[in-house]
């Protein structure tokens, strides 16, 4: 990764759920940190998220899930990510994620899970550390 290139983040909801407060807040804080954030609105599918990640040359995919839909959405999306060879893209999941489901989601390839209430700094630090590691 070139040093002057800004970190590019795709922030999306999964599926039809409309609880967008978390995704909006995280977007705001990441932009304040100088990251470029592409914010996708409702009606995303695993396909549309992955397609946009490719088109927009994204470093980090951030998914916000509040209704439990991640349990079917994430496996489908991770399969596509692997098919498309996007192994360098960091995948983060946030929102209402029961702790019991976290091991399964990590096994699916999610790099980090930020349950609701996570400090914004923990998300920012994770992205900064891991994007630069992958880029080098």
């Amino acid at each position, binding site marked *: 990764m070139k040093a002057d290139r800004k970190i590019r983040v795709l922030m999306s909801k*999964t*599926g*039809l*759920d*409309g*609880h*967008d*407060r978390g995704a*909006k*807040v995280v977007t*705001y*804080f990441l932009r304040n940190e100088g990251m470029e954030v592409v914010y996708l609105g*409702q*009606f995303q*599918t695993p396909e549309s998220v992955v397609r946009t990640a490719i088109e927009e040359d994204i470093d980090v995919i951030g998914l916000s899930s*509040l*209704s*439990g*839909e991640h*349990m*079917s*959405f994430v496996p489908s999306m991770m399969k596509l990510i692997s098919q498309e060879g996007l192994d360098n893209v960091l995948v983060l999941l946030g929102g*209402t994620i*029961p*702790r*019991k489901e976290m091991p399964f989601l990590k096994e699916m390839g999610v790099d980090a899970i930020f*349950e*609701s*209430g996570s*400090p*914004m*700094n923990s998300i920012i630090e994770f992205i900064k550390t891991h994007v630069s590691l992958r880029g080098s």
Partner: protein
Amino acid sequence: MTKEIDRISEAYRQKMTDTKTWSGFEVKSIYTPEDIDLDYERDLGSPGTYPFTRGIHKDMYRGKLWTMRHEIGYGTPEDSNRRLKFMIENGATGLDFIADNPTHLGMDSDHPLAIHDIGRTGVPLTSLADMEELMDGIPMEKVSTFTNTFSACGFVVLAQYISLAEKRGLNITELRGQVITDTLHSRYCGYRPAAPVEQAFRVGADLMEYLTRNVPKWNMIFPCYNLRETGINAVQEVAFLFSIAIAFIRELIRRGLDIDDFARRLSWIPSCHMDFFEEIAKIRAERRLWARIVKEWFGAQDPRSMWWRGAAKAAGCSLVAQQPLNNIARVSIEALVAVLTGCQALEVTTFDEPICIPTDEAHRISLRIQQIIAHETGIARVADPLGGSYYVEALTNKLEQEIMDLINKIEEMGGIIQAIKSEWLDREIDEALTRYQEEVENKERIIVGMNEFIIPPEEDVEIEHLEISYERGLERVEKIKSLRRKRDNEAVEASLKTLYGKSKGDSNIMPYVIDAVSHYATIGEVMGMVRLAHGNSYDPSETLSPSFPLE
């Protein structure tokens, strides 16, 4: 241990440093008679007397306790029917079901984008067949039901309910319940694609007019709560929703109704948030202010038209995923706000809301909290027990003034529709939610277990959580496909075409919606007609188009 000893000696000297209310108003350390300028008759009035600051009924809870109800909806209509009955068995006194995400958006369970969302955060209500299963074994003539679909598609769900009542041979003029008729706020609560402004306003006004003329005991709800959950403050919560209600009142009057024909059926869902006294003052202020607005702005004569009736809800967004049992304390404190201010109904949000769809046990605990307040504490014995407190009255005055100023500001902008179209309201909400989050990050706001008094996750309690299986969603898709084959498709098509034609004109569309629904037209099909007639895409996601030619 040295560290802990240091901590305890430091903690011993802790002081109250947070001197501002949730909404940012600085308060003093003590209030005296100097702080309130009150005329008892003019500003408070005894309960049951204008301006109803102290309550709308003379005898308050000695006449009737508040209605205890909880939002139910998950999985399938059968699952939700079982939960409704579980709550009735446990002593709930009102019914309340909430639709799932696809239904809120006006999309059917077999919509290609819906599969991950079926039965999550609510019950799927694609057609009348689902309503039949949801209400199976529940006597609609004996219960009061809140058909809680708060998007601009809620009128279709109510049409399913009315159609089912007609099928059961019931007199719909006797039906009792509540529906959210504010179709504008949901664009800020996740359902914008389903709520183009002009269309949403028209269907909301059609619904209100229809209910006033045909189902006169049905209450029309403006849910301040939903908008508050976006992160706005107490003043904004009331001012925005009052401004929306004012827009609908003007429209109904334009259509020839008199304020006294319908105003007594308006009711409100105030949020009961964590800042105890500010929330109490807010509810008392809004009761007084609403009475004045309805009387002075719209010339109501009937005192019942001036009643601000509250169906309060404990704030879901005040609950946290960390150390979740603490949420039981939070919602209990919030529930006290509703009871101490004399609300007419209450929903206590479940402690597991930040983690999953509520389990049976979580719902029962919420109900038990209400029953403990009602039957063990004696709090409900006396009306407005905090009335006359120097602090509460001073804060009530302050909140009323702030709310009124904001309503006037919106009026000067040309009213709420203009404030929505110009995206002023979007900016207000975004500013509020980012400011709130900054305060949480800086620990200007302490949230126990979340940004202070934290424990490692492995020490935290593990709670049971409800899973909604993907396979159940697949079964739903098959069920809807089968319905489409079995129903009388000629009747469906004819009724939808009529609805499309009526939606293009000025007539009230509700009778045509009910007719289409009675033939098992789906919510997606009904909304498709209304959307097309208003110049919008058939499908909010622009994936589907009508299955037959329209003209």
